């Protein structure tokens, strides 16, 4: 289908996801982890929107002239995904604030953490 056209989109979203994952995997600071999660979400949302792309389609807004519309369903999905991403990030920040108030640090290092 139109995957050759979507090549750049794939590159951008996988790059975004890779950076996000790198951030989660290496950083100790809670805020940095939250940011990298945000990055992963944006990467995925870009991909979903790209799924609905039709060559030459315009934005799916009904204004009378029946031009070719891009598939509206993924965009609906992305809307909910973005809302969910925001709420998760808000909750994460609240938790990080609570943790900071309790322990005075935002670092999740080897000793202070519940392990084994």
């Amino acid at each position: 289908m139109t995957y050759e056209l979507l090549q750049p989109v794939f590159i951008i979203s996988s790059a975004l996801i890779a950076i996000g994952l790198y951030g989660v995997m290496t950083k100790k600071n809670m805020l940095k982890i939250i940011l990298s999660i945000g990055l992963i979400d944006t990467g995925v949302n870009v991909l979903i929107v790209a799924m609905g792309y039709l060559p030459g389609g315009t934005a799916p807004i009904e204004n009378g002239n029946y031009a070719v519309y891009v598939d509206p369903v993924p965009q609906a999905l992305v809307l909910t995904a973005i809302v969910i991403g925001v709420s998760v990030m808000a909750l994460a920040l609240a938790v990080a604030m609570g943790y900071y108030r309790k322990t005075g640090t935002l670092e999740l290092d080897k000793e202070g953490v519940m392990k084994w």
Partner: protein
Amino acid sequence: MVSVPPVLLIALPLLFAFFAPLVNMWSRKAVKVYTLLVLILNATLSYLLFANVMQNGVVYEQLSGFYPPIGILLAVGPIGAILALLINTLSTIVYLTYFGEAENSVKFSMLYMLVTASSTGIVITGDLFNMFVFFEITAVGSYGLVASMRTKESFEGAFKYIVLGSIGSAFILLGIATIYGYLKTLNFYDIALRIDTMPPTARLMSFIFLIIGIGVEAEIFPLNGWVPDAYQGASNRVASFFSLGPSKAGIYAIARLIFTLLPILSGWQLALLLGVFTLIIGELAALMQEDPKRMLAYSSIGQMGLILIALSLHSETALIAAIFLMVGHALAKSLLFLGVRDYARGTLRNPLIAAPMFIGILSIIGMPPFPGFWGKWYLMKDLASQGAWLIMLVIILTAIVESVYYARFLHRGTGGEKRKLSRSETAAIIILASLLILVGIFPNYLYDPAVRAAASLLGGGP
């Protein structure tokens, strides 16, 4: 029987959850009673739905009038009905324990209702994205519940749960994106029909994305890093609720994935491998635990592995075993989490707590008159008929390891001075224990629905 539209099961709790602050303004104490009433209502509705499904087969419901490719379809099959009934009734019982608590924050009750509704939603929905949304609501609700204790451990547990949960949801979204990209539909059964048209690599990629995403919630081995810390951080009530609600929904989603969406042979083999690994790692890690709650968390991981093995054998007896194991684990583990306290002041000294806890442990180990036994017996029976001696050996060795660390738990629990639990907690524990005994002694009430559920699941239907 009056036919109950399944959507009520989700809509009512959400509606009443958002009315909760209004009730709170009226009187703080009333919120608890209000929430309990809502949960009881939801439980009765789920029972009616269960009776309805049992009587005249699968109940379908169109949301917002559109037909499947566009609209969301709720398809409640026998397995969905059983799990919905299980989740709702047990969450009401576990909520009972909140009455013993001094502080009564409205936020806790709201989150509780929210997560119950969304877990039920996962179980009865027929649409992939709709399941994702319910997954996310459960996840967010659970993050909040874990953090509700406001201690260092709970914040830390919540944070880990958030990080891994969001990575998981990202993977699910990727899976949905690939599937939607090719098949332009999100309905399970529609996907199942047209899954072959997808090119094989895309199909495999979507399966990988989905199994990782759902796996995080279903506590499968490499993905369940958050489980021990989340359960240890959460309060007893929340941990007990987790072991019945969200984890059951997670394992249901895995079942839905490998039976309806992508019923491919290598999928079952992967699930079997994951199940075996989860079982071994879960049980062995539990052997060396000092903190009882963390031990129970690892034991939950082990039990999830066992259920996964049962699911992955894709034969009728194995599925019946999976259902029995799910019901047994939900009842017993929630009971244990309610009753467990740190060893210094063990709760096993007063007989009112010791006897139900003892029954709970017996069911988990797989002792006869309890559902755990019927699950293990059927699982072994199915494994024997397929001649899979190695897996049987693994299950046997892990069962022995399990009995060792539960023996230590039983002994150390009786140490320390006597400790009184609040009346409501004792009541909840006793109710759960009596439920365990009833299901154990009269298993046919669970057996007949389980047989139909297994048949329908195997056939790819809801």
